[in-house]
């Protein structure tokens, strides 16, 4: 029986703990300064919006941890001594480990803006950020306007949060179209329109110059770099991406770059020390992925992998086909495989959009081999299993379109768009693809 210590109780750390418990009798301790119990970070926005209470974001009831013999310590790890295998905590105590898993996640980026540490300036990442937002932006009376800096997934979530309480929002986006480093132009424009439809003051190609303080050290306005315009506000949300939360490792012997450097086995340069989730940085990026993947799903998969390595056989982190999802106000987004923002030379693209401007799909394939490479879906749900299989089997784009009805995952009675999609593809590409009817047999053929 070994003494496993996990720093961080997010999805990566908790998944590792759960799987270690399933596979072994090791002693397990999770240390987190943020909260005692695991909660779903992705759901924090819903607490502010009143869709849920904080307790609803906790996937396991409080008795779960004791029952599964997972010890929880609420404290901050100040530093790690890899020689003595000791962690020193901010409460003065220290904890020994046989194996250490670093799963400390991310922290919001701050780019040295003047005023970035003022009161009323916050990220939207930690539970403490949520508390700050609740304090500085409880309602439109106390918060006349919120300015959000950074046009990514967290930025648009924060805009939706403010909007839910009728707080006017100015949304500063560095790029000339929302999230167009990730989304192709068509989808990016669809979301631009939807942001405007919700009454958000969207400022594209706009950077933050500085945040102005009032006499009490609280943010009172921002200045826009490009125009010099001053926008009065009571809350400034900094949502310009995240980076690994690893400052406490600076003086340890653990190798760090932007994140904790790991090999494909999620091992650091120090024996018995692993890093998983947002804070881990691969020496070599896996496939077309980035070396640091700050995504819920990858955190979970790394947790599963490290548990297997610790309890049984040494296993490499081998994520399958890329997938992700998000929701932009009312428009749901799913992606399977790769649909890059910029079309490569060898790629063929097919984009279909419904006349209501809120439903669309974008398919990426290889022009010569016709191999299906990926799909973005907006406002239409698709079956993960279908695309996972299509990518594994290296199906061509015609196969995917032919079987689009099998892929559809919208609720019953929803209007089906497959025919319109296939018709448009045929018209654009001079093909004669015939849409097949949905078949349970095919859907279940391998499960």
């Amino acid at each position: 029986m070994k003494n496993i210590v996990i720093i961080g109780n997010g999805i990566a750390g908790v998944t590792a703990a759960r799987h270690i418990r399933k596979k072994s009798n090791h002693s397990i301790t999770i240390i987190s300064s943020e909260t005692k119990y695991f909660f779903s970070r992705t759901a924090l926005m819903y607490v502010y919006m009143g869709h849920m209470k904080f307790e609803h974001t906790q996937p396991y009831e409080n008795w779960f941890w004791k029952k599964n013999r997972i010890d929880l310590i609420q404290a901050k790890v100040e530093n790690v001594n890899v020689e003595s295998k000791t962690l020193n905590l901010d409460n003065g105590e220290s904890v020994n480990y046989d194996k250490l898993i670093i799963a400390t996640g991310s922290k919001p980026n701050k780019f040295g803006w003047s005023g970035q540490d003022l009161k009323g300036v916050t990220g939207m990442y930690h539970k403490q950020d949520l508390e700050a937002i609740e304090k500085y932006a409880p309602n439109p009376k106390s918060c006349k306007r919120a300015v959000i800096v950074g046009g990514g997934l967290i930025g648009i979530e924060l805009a939706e949060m403010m909007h839910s309480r009728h707080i006017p929002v100015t949304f500063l986006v560095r790029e000339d179209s929302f999230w167009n480093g990730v989304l192709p132009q068509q989808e990016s424009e669809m979301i631009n329109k939807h942001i405007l439809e919700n009454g958000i003051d969207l400022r594209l190609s706009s950077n933050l110059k500085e945040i102005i303080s009032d006499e009490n050290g609280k943010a009172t306005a921002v200045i826009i770099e490009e125009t010099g315009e001053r926008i009065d506000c009571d809350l400034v949300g900094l949502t310009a991406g995240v980076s690994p939360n690893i400052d406490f490792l600076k003086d340890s012997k653990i190798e760090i770059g932007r994140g904790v450097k790991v090999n494909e086995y999620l091992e650091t340069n120090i024996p018995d020390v692993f890093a998983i989730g947002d804070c881990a940085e691969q020496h070599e990026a896996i496939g077309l992925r980035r070396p640091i993947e700050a995504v819920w799903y990858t955190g979970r998969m790394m947790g599963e992998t490290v548990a297997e390595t610790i309890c049984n056989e040494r296993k490499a982190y081998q994520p399958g086909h890329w997938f992700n999802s998000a929701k932009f106000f009312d428009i749901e987004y799913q992606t399977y495989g790769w649909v890059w923002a910029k079309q490569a030379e060898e790629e063929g693209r097919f984009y279909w959009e419904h006349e209501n401007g809120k439903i669309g799909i974008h398919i990426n394939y290889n022009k010569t081999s016709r191999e299906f490479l990926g799909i973005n879906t907006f406002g239409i749900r698709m079956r993960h299993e279908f695309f996972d299989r299509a990518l594994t089997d290296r199906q061509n784009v015609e196969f995917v379109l032919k079987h689009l009805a099998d892929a559809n995952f919208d609720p019953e009675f929803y209007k089906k768009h497959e025919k319109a999609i296939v018709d448009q593809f045929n018209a654009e590409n001079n093909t004669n693809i015939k849409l097949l009817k949905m078949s349970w047999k095919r859907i279940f053929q391998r499960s």
Partner: protein
Amino acid sequence: MKIIKHIGLAICLLGFTVFTISIFTGENHVSKPVFDNWISSSKIKSSIFIEKTESEVVGKTMSTSELTSIIMSNAKSSGEIHKTKAESIEDPDKKNEEWAKVIWVKWNSTYKDYVYPLVRESVTGWVPKNQSLFFLFTFGFAIIGGLIYILPDYKLLGPAGIKNNGIFQHSATNRGVIGMVAFAFFVGFYIALYFFPNYLVNPIVSVDFISKSISGGSSSQWFLYGFMYCSVMTVFAIRMFIKYRHNKYQMVRTSVVLFFQIAFAFLIPEILVRFNQPWFDFKNAWPLDYDFFFSSNLDGLVDSGNLGVFMLVWGIVLTLIIVPIMVYFFGKRWYCSWVCGCGGLAETLGDPYRQLSDKSLLSWKIERWVIHGVLVFAVLMTGLTLYTYFAELENWKELAFGITAYDIQSSYGFLIGSIFSGVIGTGFYPILGNRVWCRFGCPLAAYMGIVQKFKSRFRITTNGGQCISCGNCSTYCEQGIDVRAYAQKGQNIVRASCVGCGVCSAVCPRGVLKLENGPEEGRIKSDDPIVFGNDGFKINH
């Protein structure tokens, strides 16, 4: 827009206020023929009671509460006299004759069985004389005001989509003061309806003209209830149509469940009465319709000719064949959230309260014991009822331990039929969520749940590895199912209690959940539940 909303709310509340005040302001004038008719139809044999009550009430005008208290006190005092007398009589026949004169006073039956019929027949005053005006001030205001309150949401809520904003910050939907007031009102109304309908006489009279136009008969408390039920469901269905206008499943489902309530539970039975046929709700299946096999119902149907016999056969076929087959193909949702009246109210009036259901493992344990306990109770009671029926025993004959079939039937009716399904089932919406009855009490739901769990094509499919454990699905599950617990493991949701309302799928921000009727094979992925994405090795959860 907001001002319009507030005006609507004010008008609606005014309607409810007039309605509530009217409960306490009934007025009665008892004429001699009405009194005599009441005595004979109520089978009251005590001359002491009859003489005393006649002298005190006939020809006089008095408030309903005064009339009630006279009847109750005379029933008690005459009963005491007869009891004492009966005990002193030796001759068994005469003794029984004396006992038969006693009016047994019980809080949960005397008001509705004895007091209410007289009050209903003798009601007078402003309300019966101005029925349509009173109808406008109560139902009219409540309905019109409610609609004015709800309709602006079409614009106010913004573009179509899930807008559960502020639900846990609002007093009405988060067990706050408004929630508690609603709770008190619902519970109070159900107690009055089931046990003290004599006080509801003004509202009952105000829908008399509607009753006459449909069934031809005078309105009863049950007609009032049916009318209110349909009105409330209609208003709140309109709310659903606005809230879920982007979600066709919810639109279709809400329309269908509203249709079944209005047509099958309200109009068709009343129209049947107009044609001298038994009042019959074709969609109400045993054991939810717990008195279907009571001798009074069986005899009533058999005596009603061909249609009555058809109803009897239909009722049996519905329970034994149609219900399980439909559950096999579609899950119990076909009934619970598409057809059933209890479900219909829960999905309309109850929708604002769905998030209040308890999701803990403990409540799931309690649920399984209680709901299956009620099913066993219903089956035993019905078995006993049929035994006495076919053995041609009187149902007041002692069977064992001093208990009669009647005792068991009436305690089921009181505990389950009235208290559980009505007072707790609906009254507790603002505290325990909108499916308390369906989750913990309904024996039909228990029966269908067993079929759904073990032999059905229905499941909620989890979409590969897309779950982010946010918890919207679990929070908005009215049945208290921890949907997330399955979804985050990549498992399909196959639970006996799922009524297939589809809201977990609707509120999911990542497109993870879909209600499906597919092949049984692969429905439960318990052996091999894999969250997608990890290709490194096989993972068991």
